[in-house]
């Protein structure tokens, strides 16, 4: 038995990391994922690593999308990187606490405080992690091949609705992202209008929750 199993006495929840630069739409994506996953009967909880406040956690708690007690905020001590990679212990403790409080929780979404392209999640923290970049950050981001872009299980390119306004060629950006990732998943989303969320939810059900 792993330490995790002894805590909850049940199968541990899958831990799903959401990384990416500040402002790329991580919280917006969480706000889309919660109702979509809930509609499919997934028992959920969320951890946020806000950088300077507990604003993301409060935004989710007040959203009405999820029981506010199921949202935990973990302070990152000005080190958003460290808390998901070198020293994720406080995040692990927060996840364990959520599992203890909500036995049967299946999936814990962990939103990183946001960082640069070099951030990755510790293999001991998450079972699966995605990296969210956005169109308005520039279509050269995939080409820069940061570890977040390359190593994440799924790369999400968000704010596709803004492409015409920022002069980005979406098709090329997507093709370049696919090329640098050697065929591993790249998803295009528009969290403002809820586009592309279903594909991600589908992927979570099959590859993270092993439901199908």
């Amino acid at each position, binding site marked *: 038995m792993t330490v995790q199993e002894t805590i909850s006495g049940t199968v541990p929840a899958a831990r799903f990391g959401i990384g990416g630069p500040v402002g790329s739409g991580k919280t917006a994506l969480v706000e889309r994922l919660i109702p979509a996953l809930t509609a499919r009967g997934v028992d959920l909880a969320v951890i946020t690593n806000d950088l300077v406040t507990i604003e993301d956690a409060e935004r989710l708690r007040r959203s009405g999308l999820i029981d506010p007690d199921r949202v935990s905020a*973990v302070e990152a*001590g000005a080190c958003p990187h460290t808390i998901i990679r070198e020293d994720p212990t406080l995040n692990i403790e927060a996840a364990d606490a959520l599992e*203890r409080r909500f036995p049967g929780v299946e999936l814990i979404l962990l939103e990183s405080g946001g960082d640069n392209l070099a951030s990755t999640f510790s293999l001991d923290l998450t079972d699966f992690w995605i990296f969210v970049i956005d169109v308005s950050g520039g279509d050269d981001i995939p080409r820069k091949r940061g570890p977040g872009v390359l190593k994440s299980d799924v790369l999400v390119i968000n704010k596709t609705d803004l492409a015409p306004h920022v002069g980005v060629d979406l098709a090329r950006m997507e093709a370049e992202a696919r090329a640098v990732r050697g065929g591993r998943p790249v998803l295009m989303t528009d969290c403002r209008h809820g586009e592309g969320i279903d594909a991600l939810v589908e992927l979570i059900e099959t590859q993270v929750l092993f439901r199908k």
Partner: protein
Amino acid sequence: MHDMRTILTLLQHGDSNFPAGGFAFSWGVEGLEIDGHLPRGRAALQGFVVDQLAHRWDSMDRVLLRRAFAADIDGIEEVDHETEALTLSAEMRQGSRRAGRALIGVHARLGGEMAALYRARLDAAPGHLPPAQAIAARDIGLDLGAAELLAGWTLITGLVSAAVRLGTVGHLDGQAVMAEAGGHLEHLLARDPSDDAHAFTPISDIAIARAPLRAQRMFAT
């Protein structure tokens, strides 16, 4: 003084890279800085660190650590509840519990037997930092002296590294403060502390207690 095995263990566990969540706690440095009580520069930080070492760590945390170090698991739980009762501010209690639970959690995952046993009690026991440090030290085979050295040093590095991240000192002055505070720690460790646990650090206690009122906050304490 310490054998090579002990020194290696201390280097590993006293390293700010040791993943027990310590970097997310400023133990009042953030609050003091925001409230304007920690001016920039080496002198102010040095005064603060030495004050914390003498008037909180040595007189309280160290006493509780020593007691837990000598106790069986039930005795440790008693010390844990006593720590809860002795820690005045709710924020400080919460911080100490989170830091202690994180330390117990990582040691349990690394195979520490006592940590795993105590972890199972954490629904009832608060999991404060000083008893957690005693548990961790016993799991990694430290003697009492080494356990105290590790706990004192961890406080110094935690405070200084928070100050560096908050920009109250530069990285070089930070090292100077650490060296100076290390000397104070050596001095404190050369004699036994009092038996009765007490702390008197009102300014930092208030700074920590004011945390919920602040809009900006990067640290857990």
